[in-house]
Structures are given as C-alpha cells and as structure tokens.
C-alpha cells in the first residue's frame, strides 16, 4: 500500500487548526481522528528519506523514516489517541489546540531528518506545552508555565547556538550519530537536548510544572517532551560513555525525591526523570542491543506512565486534591481504577508478566555487560521505584485510613482509556515477541530466565517488607522537598532587581546623562558661564525628550565625523 509521503506531524497541525474552528460539541470526538490518521499513516510509511526540500546550501528533510522514528512515532500517536479518549469530556479550546500542536511538534521532531527542521518543531513543542500548563488551574500554573517556557526557550537557544556552530563548522545539518570526540557545537546541542530530557541539574522545570497542569494536561505532558529528547539522544549520542554515568545518577537522584514527595503527581513526575535515566544510561552503552532496549523501554514507558498519570488524573477529577496527606481509603469507591493503576505500577516496577519487566531486563542485561557495578545503582533505583509508585502512592491514596473525602462520579471513558493501556502492558509483558516486533533491529533475547525472574521478585519483596514495618513513619507531613528550582524561584526578586530594575535604571540614567551632556555642551557653546547650572530632573522615559537643537547637533556631529573619517 502506498501512502502520501509527508510528515505525519501535519495530521496533528491540521487537527490543531481544525480545533480552532470546530464547535465545542464536535471538538473532543474530532480530536481522536488526527492521532488515528497519523497512526495508520506511520504504520504504512516505507523507510528512507521521503520528503526533502533544498534550502540555501543544504536540505530540509521533513520526513525521514527509520526503525527508531517509526517506533517512537507509533508510540506518540497511540498515546495521543488514548489520552484523547481519556479527555473526551474536555471542552477547553486552548488546551485541545495546544495538545495537538504539542503532539504534532513531537512527531515532527521524530521524523525530522535535519537539525533545522528539528529546531522548528522543537520550538513548537516548547510553546504548545507551555500553553497546556497555562491551561491548568490557578496562579501556580501561570507562574510555573512562565518558568517552564523560559527554561525551554533557554534550551532552544542552546540548541540553536549548537546548530549555527555546526553549520558554520561545515558539518552538514542532517541528523546523524556524533563521535564522542566533543566539539563545542555538539556539546551545545547535547545540552539543549538534555534540558528537554530533564537531566539534573537541568531538570527543575519538570517537577515544578507538571503537577500544576490540569487533569488531562499533565497526562499529555508526561508522554512527549522527555521521550522526544530520548529519541534524539538515541539518534545522535549513542555510545557516549558519559551518558551511562549521567543516566544512573539521574535515575537515583529522582527516585530519592519521589520518595520524599507528598503530591502523587509530583511522585510520578520525578519518576519520569528516573525512568528517562534508565534509558539514557543504556543509550550510553550504545550497542545495537542497548539502543533497542532504550527505545523499547521508552515505548513501554509512554504506555505505563500515561496509565499511571491517568490514575492520578481520575483521583484529582473525583476528589479535587492530590496530596497524600489528605487522601486515603478511596479504594472501595473506585475499585476498577485501583486495579488498572496497579497494572501500571507493576509494569513500571518491572514485575514479571508486565511490560516493564521485559525492557528493564534488557536494560539490566546491556548495563551488566558494559557498565560494571553501575547496574547496582539502577537496581537501587528500581527499589525506590517500587517503593514510591508501587506501594507508597497506592497505599496512602486508596487504603491506609478513611479520609472522608467526597468522591465525585467520573465518566466511564476514563477507565476505558486506562484499560486499553493496561491491556497493552499485560500483552507486552506476557508475549515479549509482540514488543520485540517494534524494535528497530531484530532482538534475540529471552527475558524470562531464572536469574531475571528471581531478581525481579526478590527486590520488590524486600522493599515491601521494609515498607510494611515503617508504614506509619513514611507518610510524613505535608511538606515539599527543595529541588534545584530553588535557585531560580527563590532568587527571582534578586534577578529582577539586578537585571530589570537596575538595568532599566542604568539605561535611563545613561539617557539622562547623554541628554544632560548634550544640553550642557550646547549650553556651554552658547554661554560658557552656564556650565555651572544645576542638573535637570530625573529622566522619565515617556516624557523626557531632548530639545530639537540636540537632535540637529547629533546629525551635524555624525555628518562631520563620518566625512572626516572617509576623507582622511
């Protein structure tokens, strides 16, 4: 079957435009058409460079398909489709438009063949995702959205700088694997990508903003930005040994914060970082098997992470709060949601028979062969994952004690969307071959070895035992743990004074001084004795204007100066 050869991102962009004109009633259902179209389109796309335009002295490649981009594209489209089902009740035009732009940007990056195209879709993603955060409730969302946007524009600037350097250095702009011998251009690109991958210390935007988006907003956000970054890392930076260390550090660092967090969406946000850490670590290994492991883990992650976020989304929708210290005892009121959530939780914790087990086993295998003792760091992170997502979150949310909160009914399409994803988790876990079919290269791997199963059972078992003995101590108090966003959030007034108020003052003073001295100079020319006159009032940007004579004088000075310079 032949299909039109344009970037599937355009389905989403067309959808976003359609959202602008469609009436509210039709929007939510029409929303589903575009991811579906993209899904089918990607499924039938052949491999290779399919859509390219000559631009200046290089090519803009809008559509380049290989094993990785096909897999990521399918996963993104599926996520957008299922989240669309979950949010059938949403009527906010801004959010729906932004969501499609956002997904379109992600798919556009996935199929981009050169850095220039990538950059354009990258910025579309940044702006659209900021819009999604802004659609969240309250002032907290507004502030977090602005911080998020600034952070990502900064990341985009790093990327742009790297691309300009790359172009200037004569290296073509097509997306390719870079050698580990680092040039400034490549380092800048890496940093720009790592901002989106939420690599500590560039990660603070993620836990700051994701929990503040709306019910469906944070579900959307979790699926795309970081995974797109993972995709770019796979394509360009595979085999960079530093990523192995960075990824392990990232996985552990975020898990610690997740254990401390008191907000269930914050726990899951930190787990995005932690899971991306797994992928980055294995990208650092760089063998073909390792890259398959990274991408399969990313696909699984998109699926089960979305499932988990949907679970918390239902809680937020039904109860109105996501703080663990306020929740408890809700299981009887939403048993189906608890069951579906637990499937996701088991998947992320890597239980046998669930999808996470397969890809995690691949990661541990690849790391064990090449990374030495680093694999133990990942195991420790796995302990923390099960502790916070698998036990702490569900236990205090749905069991433990009666919170007495009122539970609003939630629409049936929410658990329906969750059920689709849960089915995928189970299917990929029980029949690993279905998962391997998505892999960019053929995978010869048997996850269900005694060694893997034993490890995957004993670790959570021990975690559960430890948790049970301390279960009354772990809940703690309604507090937050300071993360690196402290540096810019707490110091914002300082920066404002330093870079805005002061700078403004300096420049207004400069103008003041300039005005003053031109005035003085002409006053002096008129009557030298008047130099002793006092200074004019403070400068007001709106009202102060130099007199006409100063302007005429300025013209005269420029003419004379330039003529002298030229005729010298």
């Amino acid at each position, binding site marked *: 079957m032949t299909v039109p050869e344009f970037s599937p991102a355009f389905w989403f962009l067309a959808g976003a435009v359609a959202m602008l004109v469609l009436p509210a009633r039709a929007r939510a259902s029409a929303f589903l058409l575009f991811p579906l179209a993209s899904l089918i389109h990607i499924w039938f796309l052949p491999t290779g460079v399919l859509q390219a335009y000559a631009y200046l002295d290089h090519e803009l490649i809008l559509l380049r398909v290989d094993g990785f981009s096909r897999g990521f594209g399918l996963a993104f489209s599926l996520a957008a489709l299922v989240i669309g089902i979950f949010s059938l009740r949403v009527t906010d035009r801004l959010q729906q438009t932004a969501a499609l732009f956002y997904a379109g940007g992600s798919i556009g990056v996935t199929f981009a063949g050169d850095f220039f195209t990538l950059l354009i879709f990258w910025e579309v993603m940044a702006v659209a995702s900021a819009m999604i955060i802004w659609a969240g409730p309250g002032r907290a969302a507004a502030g977090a959205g602005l911080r998020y946007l600034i952070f990502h524009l900064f990341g985009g600037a790093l990327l742009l700088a790297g691309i300009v350097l790359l172009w200037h250095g004569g290296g073509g702009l097509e997306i390719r694997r870079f050698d580990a011998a680092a040039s400034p251009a490549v380092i800048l690109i890496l940093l720009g990508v790592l901002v989106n991958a939420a690599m500590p210390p560039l990660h603070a935007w993620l836990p700051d903003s994701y929990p503040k988006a709306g019910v469906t907003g944070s579900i959307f956000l979790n699926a795309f930005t970081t995974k797109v970054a993972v995709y770019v890392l796979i394509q360009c930076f595979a085999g960079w040994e530093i990523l192995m260390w960075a990824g392990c550090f990232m996985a552990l660092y975020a898990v610690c914060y997740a254990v401390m967090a008191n907000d269930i969406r914050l726990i899951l946000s930190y787990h995005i970082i932690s899971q991306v850490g797994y992928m980055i670590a294995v990208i650092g290994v760089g063998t073909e098997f390792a890259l398959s492991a990274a991408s399969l883990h990313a696909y699984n992650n998109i699926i089960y992470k979305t499932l988990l976020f949907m679970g918390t989304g239902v809680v937020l929708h039904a109860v109105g709060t996501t703080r663990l210290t306020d929740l408890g005892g809700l299981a009887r009121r939403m048993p189906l949601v608890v069951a579906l959530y637990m499937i996701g939780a088991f998947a992320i914790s890597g239980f046998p028979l669930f999808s996470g087990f397969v890809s995690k086993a691949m990661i541990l295998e690849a790391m064990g062969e090449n990374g030495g003792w680093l694999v*133990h760091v990942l195991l420790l992170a796995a302990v923390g994952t099960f502790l916070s997502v698998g036990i702490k979150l569900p236990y205090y949310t749905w069991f433990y004690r009666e919170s007495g909160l009122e539970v609003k009914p939630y629409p049936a399409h929410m658990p329906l969307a969750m059920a689709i994803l849960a089915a995928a988790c189970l299917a990929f876990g029980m029949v690993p071959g279905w998962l391997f079919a998505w892999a960019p290269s053929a995978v010869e791997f048997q996850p269900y070895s005694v060694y893997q199963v034993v490890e995957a*059972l*004993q*670790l959570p*078992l*021990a975690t*559960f035992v430890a948790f049970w003995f301390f279960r009354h101590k772990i809940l703690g108090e309604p507090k*937050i743990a300071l993360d690196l966003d402290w540096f810019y959030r707490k110091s914002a*007034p300082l920066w404002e004074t330093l870079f805005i108020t002061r700078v403004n003052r300096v420049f207004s003073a400069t103008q003041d001084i300039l005005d003053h001295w031109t005035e003085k100079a002409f006053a002096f020319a008129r009557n030298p004795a008047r130099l002793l006159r006092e200074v004019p009032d403070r400068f007001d940007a709106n009202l102060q204007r130099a007199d006409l004579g100063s302007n005429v004088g300025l013209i005269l000075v420029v003419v004379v100066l330039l003529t002298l310079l030229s005729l010298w």
Partner: protein
Amino acid sequence: MKLVGWIFLFLIFAGTVAAQYWDDPAKFPAYYFVYGLLGCLLLLFVTKVVAKKSIMRKEDYYDRS
C-alpha cells in the same frame, strides 16, 4: 496484613531462593532480597532522616517572599 498474606509472600521468597540455588549454586541465593532490604532502608534513611533536616520546607515556602 493477614497471616495468609505473609505466608504467600514467604512462599514466593522460598520459591525464588530455591530457583536461584538450582540455577547457580555458587551464588548467594537471597542476594537480591538482602540488597533490596538494605537499599530500601538506605533510601528511607536518606530521604526521611537526612533530607528532613536539610531540604524539607513548608508547602507555602515559595509563596512567602
């Protein structure tokens, strides 16, 4: 938790130990259990004791200026 649950968990544990021993007798059979237990305790110690003293703040920390 009821006794039945604990017995069930112990059976799993015993099963894994046996399977591990059967697979590779040279290895310490409950290695991952011990590693998980110690790791979990370490995590709890770091996050609940050390962090509580250093980086935990009230929720309205950023709103107060």
